[in-house]
């Protein structure tokens, strides 16, 4: 049942050391403000699930929040490496990071199965590739009708699912539009959920009967954080800060530069600091 609260309170109440946390948003609506708050609150030993770790998990991994990463593509989109993730995997800095690696199709299906309350997902995938050799979670079933062998992955059922959305109404119903990724699935598959939103409105006024709306009784905490997806974007509110994605390559390459940036821009800031990005990049 949706409850409005500040982001610090939402994270404090819902994210615990050792939790399995999924923070989704496929390029669009990535919940950066929530990630920064988790870093500020010093959460440790998290298992982080995300199709594309992106800068948000690069930052969380670099700050030592994670023991394990479950993912399918770990890079800075269109730019290059996620250096903090690489440093953790290649050199164990700031700590060893276990990985469970999938394909996008398998990750998307695992969320879908979680939302559908199924223990596993079936896909026509992983054919002729090496990932099943290094990921024991990838198994198979035989079709009872055709005898075809298909790949399986276990459903994702995170302890906490965190997303950013365009807006919520006063009742706590949440609207997402544009590139909706697998956010609906994450919310429905997770035990607890946090949704940060750009705007709280009287009525959602969904633009069509079939808009992607999460009813208030499917979400947990809702926090109003203007600009909370920056440097990702919120369709209709502000644009993706592509120049920051490019700049991150340099910031994150060196451990000290990274730590200095995090201190100044995350540790010494609050969720309210995101608002400036929304104003600057308004679409």
């Amino acid at each position, binding site marked *: 049942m949706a409850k409005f609260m500040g982001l610090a309170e939402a994270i404090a109440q819902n994210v615990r050391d050792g939790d399995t946390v999924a923070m989704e948003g496929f390029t*669009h609506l990535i919940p950066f403000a929530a990630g920064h708050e988790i870093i500020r609150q010093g959460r440790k030993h998290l298992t982080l699930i995300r199709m594309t770790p992106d800068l948000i998990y690069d930052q969380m991994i670099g700050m030592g929040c994670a023991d394990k990463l479950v993912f399918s*593509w770990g890079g800075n989109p269109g730019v290059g490496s996620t250096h903090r993730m*690489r440093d953790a995997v290649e050199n164990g800095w700031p700590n060893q990071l276990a990985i469970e690696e999938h394909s996008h*199709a398998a990750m998307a*299906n695992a969320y879908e199965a979680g939302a559908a309350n199924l223990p596993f997902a079936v896909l026509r995938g992983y054919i*002729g590739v090496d990932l099943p050799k290094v990921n024991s979670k990838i198994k198979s079933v035989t079709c009872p009708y055709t005898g075809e062998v298909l790949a399986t992955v276990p459903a994702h059922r995170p302890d906490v699912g965190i997303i950013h959305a365009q807006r919520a109404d006063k009742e706590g119903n949440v609207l997402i539009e544009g590139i*909706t990724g697998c956010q609906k699935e994450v919310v429905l598959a997770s035990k607890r959920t946090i949704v940060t939103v750009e705007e709280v409105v009287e009525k959602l006024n969904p633009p069509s009967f079939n808009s992607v709306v999460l009813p208030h009784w499917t979400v947990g905490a809702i926090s109003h954080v203007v600009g909370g997806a920056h440097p990702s974007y919120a369709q209709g509110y502000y644009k993706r800060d592509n120049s920051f994605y490019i700049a991150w390559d340099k910031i994150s390459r060196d451990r000290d530069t990274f730590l200095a940036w995090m201190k100044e821009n995350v540790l010494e800031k609050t969720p309210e600091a995101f608002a400036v990005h929304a104003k600057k990049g308004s*679409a």
Partner: protein
Amino acid sequence: MADFTRNEMMTIVAARALKNDDVCFVGIGAPSAACNLARLTHAPQITLIYESGTIGTRPNVLPLSIGDGELCETALTTVSVPEMFRYWLQGGRITVGFLGGAQIDKFANINTTVVGDYDKPKVRLPGGGGAPEIATNCGEIFITMAMGKRAFLDKLPFITSMGHGPTGKERRAYGTKSKGPTRLITDMCVFEPDAETKEMTIVSIHPGVTREEIAENCGWTPRYAAQCGETPAPTAQELEVLRDIQARTKAAHAA
């Protein structure tokens, strides 16, 4: 002949391979440039799909990521990511899937996962993303990659996405109905699979490139097709449209 870079040549050759009725699963970088070049020249009706869920998108600048807002704003419709992978990719709706990667072998298997041991990697690469299923669920696969000894390897440390399989026989053995890699477009030449062995074989060499240069940048001894010719040079229009969209893109992303 106009002046052009080898990278431009690669993108232009990839664009030429696309047809008006193709439905393309587009990746970032060279594929995105090639697909949009095709759309802006000879294939205005081509359908471009990005794995973010955007279907029939017509961006004015090239996206930096596969989920830039412009892709959604110009799309016919945008679906969820699970739907994209289930109904559209696995559903067999895509005619051409584009792949690239860090390393490739002579049967067009690709590695984008690790260099060195998986558990103690020398270099941890981004991983497969959509590639493992793109490789088998699209009608055919076009690959764009710049040549080099560290990229074109006799044997891959890890197979992220299957081309024709480690010995060229495995794809057929799996009973996969899609064609797999039918074109490997590099900055120096174009490879196509041999009908029998499935080894990627050079069918045309880009203007100004020599066989010696190709040999120096390939980790195996490349085979040439009997009728291997010269790739037609970029036309002035191709170059103009490509440079134009890249200039717009650069300006947009620096903003």
